[in-house]
């Protein structure tokens, strides 16, 4: 016993050092999955308030650029509105399923989206898993797993909320992949290799599908994003001969380096759909 105490006393520093490192490793292991993100995040009160103060200063200098992007988005939305103005929704419901149709006897109501605006108060592109802090939280109705899009394209997914702030994991993250489709409906996954914030990859696209430079890739109904939100633009394709597959390299359409305003999209049907899909999985077992 005496030897044991002497041993502890002699190597106390080393033991304490190893203990702290084990705690750190446990924390890292806990957050290495998508589910563990809630343990520590910049969505808490202190961090959020500090980030907000900083953003208030930087905000002023970005006003001009933001005005431009808002005007452009307005024009785009007006164009889309004009396209739909002459469509008789009831008649053409097979072609363009209206997303907010109330009579479920006529058309299947599969999605009902609520858009909330939010300001980006912190943002990174340099890490392997990048997070964005937003100035909306649980009090504004933001919940986990809602999707975040900007005027230009898909941005990320909410992983954590506090009363007034929330954090989202961005598309630029090794932890999550985004279900995506090409113009002709080919479905695949978009992933990021953790290196260059202006390069996304779409792997395992069959070789016979013709992809051109400049083609846009959109989100699908399968993911947490609303369908048909642009994710990236193809700028390079490489062929893997042995597998007869091609890899597409994309520039993300959202500019992650200077995100200012984003929309938090709530899918009101998401819960019902998730419950149904869970039930189907249970039946399989």
């Amino acid at each position: 016993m005496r030897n044991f105490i002497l041993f502890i006393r002699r190597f106390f520093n080393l033991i304490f050092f190893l203990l702290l490192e084990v705690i750190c490793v446990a924390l890292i292991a806990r957050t290495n999955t998508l589910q563990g993100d809630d343990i520590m995040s910049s969505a808490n009160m202190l961090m959020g308030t500090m980030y907000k103060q900083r953003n208030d200063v930087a905000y002023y200098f970005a006003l001009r650029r933001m005005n431009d992007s808002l005007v452009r988005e307005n024009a785009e939305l007006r164009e889309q509105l004009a396209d739909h103005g002459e469509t008789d929704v009831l008649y053409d419901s097979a072609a363009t399923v209206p997303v907010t149709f109330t009579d479920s006897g006529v058309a299947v109501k599969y999605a009902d989206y609520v858009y909330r605006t939010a300001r980006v108060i912190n943002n990174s592109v340099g890490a392997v898993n990048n997070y964005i802090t937003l100035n909306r939280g649980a009090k504004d109705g933001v919940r986990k797993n809602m999707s975040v899009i900007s005027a230009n394209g898909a941005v990320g997914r909410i992983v954590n909320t506090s009363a007034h702030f929330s954090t989202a994991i961005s598309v630029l993250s090794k932890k999550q992949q985004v279900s995506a489709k090409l113009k002709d409906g080919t479905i695949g996954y978009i992933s990021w290799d953790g290196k260059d914030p202006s390069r996304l990859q779409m792997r395992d696209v069959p070789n016979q599908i013709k992809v051109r430079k400049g083609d846009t890739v959109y989100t699908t109904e399968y993911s947490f994003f609303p369908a048909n939100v642009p994710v990236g633009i193809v700028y390079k394709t490489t062929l893997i001969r042995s597998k007869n597959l091609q890899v597409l390299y994309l520039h993300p359409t959202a500019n992650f380096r200077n995100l200012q305003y984003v929309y938090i999209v709530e899918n009101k049907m998401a819960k019902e759909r998730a419950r149904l899909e869970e039930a189907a999985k249970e039946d399989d077992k």
Partner: protein
Amino acid sequence: MTTLIKNIIRFCIILLIQVLILNKVTLQWWAQPSGFPVFIPYLYPLFILLLPFETPVVLLLIAGFLCGLTVDSFMNTAGIHAFATVLIAYFRINVLNALMPKNLTEYSGQTPSVKNMGWLPFIVYVSFLIVLHHAAFFTIELWSLSNIGYLLLKIFASASTSVLLIIAYVLLFTRQTGTGKSQRIL
């Protein structure tokens, strides 16, 4: 000003610089060849490096752990910064022992600085621990050795930028008096 208060103020200043300014600065050397690493310089390990010579190892470890956890919660990287900072807090004493001519207990009331150590030993001390910190941090963050060239490039680029910033900080907060003596303010 007592050493304790001085260190607490320094902790706040360094952390504010790190979180409010440096985290926003995402650097990329030579942006053109695509694939060159994007990185953030890390100044905050300087807090551990500038604690007094005689600080007991246990205190160093606790300070490193708290400092790392604070940065972690700002950057959403639970544990990685804390791991790297505790690592350099533990090895700090060995590096100092190797570089200083006398036993560390003889430098009571002094802190590692250019004045107390001389330029070359100070820069060796800073660079060694910063490289150790960055190597641990980026290895855990990337979590694979399959692309070792990229990892080394990232460590090198980030560490050299951090060391430059640390030298800038040290120069900025040192007062030069007329007789050629210099004094650290913070």
